């Protein structure tokens, strides 16, 4: 998203600034407006385009001419890509609406040609593409300008079009840069523009237009003027001056005045030479963002305006560019690629440092009204490709009058089964398209026939493993858990099929027979921990609806049963084995409540604790990996038998979450940690999260595979799951709160296709007992240009992938190394990007970065300061670190970003002001996360998706505190919990809470109260999470930015 935004503001600005602005409106070309594909428009507002032309007469005219010159000679660059005449195909493709406009440009031999476009307007097909085009010399830009359309041009398929983006070849002969592929145009400019350009994001545009065109062609017919123009046009007119600031409008950064001087110069040049440069400059203008870091290299301490640094105050905004390019793609909730442009060669991929891959959340919740359609092929069987087993999807093409279909992934021609046959109309569309969601939607769900089952679909099964030692009873955990489970019994998925079972343990293991004929459950105690056996193997797991009475009686009596228990031991390992024996028949969900360190039997753990002496040594990571192979082995066995383990840990003392969490990690589960659980404080949180865990829609005994086109392959996977074969993820239970990351690698040195398709398939058993396959399909263009990859980058996915890689790194390296890893990745990425532009533009003292990655430095900083990675011994408790690590490995992108850069909101105005209604409270008005945002007179709310912190400023109005806390005003904030009181203020606050909790129901945001200056609570809850501040050894945002900048410049 980021990429797009900037433009809009820009446009308005430009015209004004440019001398040429006036002409814009007048231009005949406006007519071109229609031409713009929807896509094109998205990228760059059309209006500007018109400006281009107008400019031509003035200065551009000559310019163009010059360019044209350039074209002729340079042909070397990429010949044919641009235009692919496939006349025949044309008609078939997409609805015109998609925005297909192809405007093949005729070569412009002379300035005159430039004019052409206009002419062409009148008569679209006017000029057949001159041979030159084919020569391939045509650069993207060239195409924009002049190319009269070859009538026939059409892309065979949308994908093909993509290529258009690539040709930047039209380098003026003079410019012989290394960078040529990227944006030649830019080059010439550089001398003139100098630093000023930094803000620009222009050149890239050409690429976009290309994309736009990539879409279905059908519409292409007339478009005399290429849509691309518009975007570029803007660039043209206002060549230099506006540029620096253009990007800035966002408020990032005021460009340094320095640049301005260059402007006039550049323009002059343009006019003088009439060369391509101007164009380039424009492109440049739009191409990247920059921050000036001081006017002189070396004097970094001046010139950085902290306020101007980019901050994701709008939260995570997924980039729409890919979705617009391929409207049939599945939603970004489900699949997010780190970059929407797949590199076409290994050498290009090796210049991409941010991880090439995807973050997949296969069961992401769909908004109401946009549910995933369910398709039942019945006896036909699911339509899949014979060779690569791809499921039928919107990107397959039907040929041979509908008798065959071509797989979009392996391009094999498959027969269409008789029952599935439908006629194909003149456009190649099936006539029954509107009744076939699998051919129109990126996400569908197939009902799987018997071939997809190795056994009858399992019932939803919940097995509870509950610690009943003294600490569990005293903390109140047992009572809360029993009540919560009881309250959820009606809402467990699976209605009458649901199975349930319980097992409790302290130094012995207690089984409960809850046969339906019993009114009271029978308890059986096994104390031989070395040789576990299961008494009554048949009656420990019972059907919930049949044994409802016994189950309820059990839950009712559970807390009282162990009221007097003084046992401090925990035979966790043996209990785990017993649970495994009980569950191994069916699989299901194992929910573990653990209060102490396992101390008896197999799997007992040492109090190895958080040894400060290990930090900074090579053995540091051993603290964060399971100590006893027992847990890994158990986890592997669990997965094998379709058991997913969720671990709830409650102890305030060391519980070795690193070991316990392994159970969740390899079984697709989750770790919940409530340090020093006290029912008075944490009750709501546990209740909510356990309820969510039990009642959310769950996919059982599932496996997931991501298929992708030829030449690319997913090679590594990151998240909580176990691999069953090289690319098959075993997920005993999945739900909407789990996401998985995967990294791609190129298998061939050169990709010949223009589009890569991805298909995520999750085969699972639904709670209703149906075997289903959820299939998500997405397409992404193959690009030949690094700049293009940057433009299509999705920061959220990049951050998610980086965080997983870094957390994995902490398991085998020092924390320091993991942090350096993140920094290094960012530096390398920006250095590579800088190399694309900096040299020609002499962007000394400026940090340049792609618009799409403007938040990466901040998220990177937040990542190095997140709980799993921050500081050293003293900065986070080991258990919290490990828990956060396990949690972050499974978080979907949106929640991860919220955790990394939480929202900070000021609420006192809203509370005090009686006219303000809580409903109107804008939870999107976020403040930068720095202590400067905190006013001592204010009251703030800090929300990271896992907890809410209310911060009372020292001089905040006592009325607020009194209103919210009543008589507890002076009490110790750590001991009181906020509850609704009978006054307006309190009600408002609760409304606000409710609002933010509803926005993210996967965790409960427990509220903590903090007074300014109340250490260490303030530090723990808030100050250490203000990621932009410098605290302890961690650098602040400005420093971090400087650091990155310095490193980027080294060897740049």
């Amino acid at each position, binding site marked *: 998203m980021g990429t797009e935004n900037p433009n809009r503001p820009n446009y308005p600005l430009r015209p004004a600034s440019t001398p040429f602005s006036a002409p814009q409106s007048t231009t005949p070309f406006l007519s071109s407006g229609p031409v713009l594909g929807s896509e094109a428009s998205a990228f760059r507002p059309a209006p500007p385009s018109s400006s281009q032309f107008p400019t031509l007469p003035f200065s551009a005219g000559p310019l163009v001419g010059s360019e044209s010159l350039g074209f002729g000679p340079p042909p070397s660059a990429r010949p044919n890509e641009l235009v692919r005449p496939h006349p025949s195909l044309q008609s078939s493709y997409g609805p015109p609406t998609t925005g297909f406009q192809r405007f093949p440009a005729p070569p412009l031999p002379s300035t005159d040609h430039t004019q052409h476009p206009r002419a062409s307007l009148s008569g679209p097909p006017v000029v057949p593409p001159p041979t030159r085009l084919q020569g391939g010399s045509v650069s993207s830009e060239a195409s924009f300008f002049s190319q009269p359309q070859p009538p026939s041009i059409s892309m065979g398929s949308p994908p093909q079009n993509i290529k258009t983006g690539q040709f930047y070849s039209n380098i003026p002969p003079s410019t012989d840069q290394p960078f040529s592929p990227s944006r030649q145009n830019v080059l010439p400019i550089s001398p003139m523009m100098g630093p000023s350009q930094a803000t620009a994001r222009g050149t890239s545009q050409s690429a976009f237009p290309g994309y736009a065109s990539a879409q279905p062609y059908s519409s292409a017919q007339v478009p005399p003027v290429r849509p691309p123009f518009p975007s570029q046009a803007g660039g043209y007119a206002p060549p230099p001056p506006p540029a620096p600031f253009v990007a800035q409008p966002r408020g990032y950064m005021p460009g340094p005045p320095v640049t301005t001087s260059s402007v006039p110069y550049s323009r002059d040049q343009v006019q003088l030479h009439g060369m391509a440069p101007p164009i380039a400059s424009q492109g440049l203008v739009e191409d990247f963002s920059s921050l000036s870091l001081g006017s002189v290299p070396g004097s970094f301490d001046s010139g950085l305006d902290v306020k101007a640094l980019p901050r994701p105050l709008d939260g995570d905004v997924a980039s729409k560019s890919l979705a617009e390019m391929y409207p049939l793609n599945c939603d970004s909730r489900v699949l997010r690629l780190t970059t929407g442009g797949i590199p076409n060669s290994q050498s290009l991929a090796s210049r991409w440092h941010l991880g090439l891959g995807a973050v997949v959340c296969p069961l992401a919740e769909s908004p109401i009204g946009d549910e995933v359609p369910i398709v039942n092929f019945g006896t036909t069987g699911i339509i899949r490709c014979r060779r690569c087993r791809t499921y039928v999807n919107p990107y397959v093409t039907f040929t041979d009058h509908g008798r065959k279909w071509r797989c979009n992934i392996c391009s094999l021609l498959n027969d269409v089964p008789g029952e599935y046959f439908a006629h194909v109309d003149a456009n190649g569309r099936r006539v029954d398209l509107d009744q076939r969601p699998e051919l129109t939607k990126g996400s569908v769900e197939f009902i799987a026939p018997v071939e997809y089952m190795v056994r009858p679909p399992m019932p939803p099964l919940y097995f509870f493993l509950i610690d009943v030692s003294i600490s569990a009873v005293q903390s109140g955990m047992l009572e809360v858990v029993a009540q919560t489970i009881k309250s959820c019994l009606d809402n467990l998925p699976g209605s009458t099929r649901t199975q349930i079972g319980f097992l409790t343990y302290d130094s012995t293991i207690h089984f409960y027979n809850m046969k339906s004929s019993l009114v009271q459950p029978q308890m059986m105690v096994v104390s031989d921990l070395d040789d576990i056996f299961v008494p009554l193997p048949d009656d420990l797991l019972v059907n919930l609806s049949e044994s409802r009475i016994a189950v309820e009686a059990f839950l009712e009596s559970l807390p009282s049963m162990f009221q007097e228990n003084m046992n401090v031991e925990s035979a966790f390992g043996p209990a785990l084995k017993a649970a495994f024996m009980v569950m191994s028949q069916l699989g299901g969900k194992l929910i573990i409540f653990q209060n102490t360190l396992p101390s008896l039997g197999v799997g007992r753990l040492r109090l190895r604790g958080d040894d400060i002496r290990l930090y900074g040594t090579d053995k540091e990571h051993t603290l964060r990996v399971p100590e006893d*192979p027992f847990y890994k082995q158990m986890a*592997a066995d669990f997965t094998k038998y379709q058991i997913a383990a969720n671990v709830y840990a409650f102890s305030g003392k060391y519980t070795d979450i690193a070991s316990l969490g*392994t159970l969740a990690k*390899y079984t697709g589960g989750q770790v919940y940690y409530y340090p020093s659980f006290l029912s008075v404080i944490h009750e709501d949180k546990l209740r909510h999260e356990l309820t969510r865990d039990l009642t959310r829609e769950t996919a059982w005994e599932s496996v997931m595979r991501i298929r992708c086109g030829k030449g690319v392959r997913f090679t590594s996977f990151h998240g909580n799951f176990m*691999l069953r074969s*090289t690319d098959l993820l075993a997920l005993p239970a999945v739900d909407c709160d789990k996401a998985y990351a995967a990294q791609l690698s190129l298998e061939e040195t050169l990709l010949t296709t223009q589009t890569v398709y991805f298909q995520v398939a999750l085969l699972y058993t639904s709670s209703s007992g149906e075997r289903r396959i959820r299939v998500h399909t997405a397409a992404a263009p193959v690009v030949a240009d690094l700049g293009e990859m940057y433009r299509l980058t999705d920061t959220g996915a990049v951050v998610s992938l980086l965080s997983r890689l870094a957390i994995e790194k902490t398991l085998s390296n020092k924390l320091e190394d993991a942090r350096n890893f993140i920094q290094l990745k960012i530096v390398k990425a920006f250095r590579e990007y800088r190399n694309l532009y900096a040299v020609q533009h002499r962007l000394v003292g400026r940090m340049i970065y792609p618009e799409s990655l403007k938040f990466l430095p901040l998220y990177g900083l937040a990542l190095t300061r997140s709980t799993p990675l921050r500081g050293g011994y003293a900065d986070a408790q080991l258990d919290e670190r490990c828990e956060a690590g396990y949690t972050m490995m499974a978080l979907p992108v949106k929640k991860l970003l919220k955790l990394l850069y939480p929202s900070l909101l000021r609420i006192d105005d809203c509370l005090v002001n009686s006219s303000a209604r809580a409903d109107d409270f804008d939870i999107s008005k976020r403040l930068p996360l720095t202590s400067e945002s905190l006013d001592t007179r204010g009251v703030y709310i800090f929300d990271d998706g896992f907890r809410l912190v209310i911060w009372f400023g020292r001089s905040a109005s006592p009325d607020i505190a009194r209103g919210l806390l009543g008589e507890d005003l002076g009490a110790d904030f750590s001991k009181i919990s906020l509850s609704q009181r009978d006054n307006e203020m309190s009600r408002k606050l609760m409304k606000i809470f409710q609002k933010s909790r509803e926005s993210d129901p996967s965790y409960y945001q427990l509220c903590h109260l903090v007074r300014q200056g109340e250490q260490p609570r303030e530090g723990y809850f808030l100050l250490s999470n203000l990621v932009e501040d410098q605290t302890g050894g961690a650098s602040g945002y400005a420093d971090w930015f400087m650091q990155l900048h310095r490193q980027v410049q080294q060897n740049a």
Partner: protein
Amino acid sequence: MADLFAWLFAFFLLITILALILYQLMCLADLEFDYINPYDSASRINWVVWPEFIAQGVLCFVHLTAGHWIMFLLCLPYLYYNIKVYSQRRHLVDVTEIFNQLHWEKKIRLFKLGYLVILLALSIFWMIWTIVDE
């Protein structure tokens, strides 16, 4: 004569170790091509890890007692590696991470294989030498 028997014994031990390594490689390759699942693969490999280590230890011991100093020295690095890996508890394949470690595990075993082949060639040479000598 005793020396010849020592060489013969060492020779068969080497063949045994080679076979065990080959078997492990085979399991890894099968896993990579999805012929067997990670559970079977890991348990099969782990099953022969101990025999491999013991056979290697015995081999060293034989060379030592028979006074084949050069061969003994050549075997030492392998022994050292085994002991080191064992003391770090990394000698068994981890079923949960087997796919991530696949390449590394294969590399290790291929390296061992090459190393053993060299040892084998040397032993054969010395064995023949001994026969001829006598």
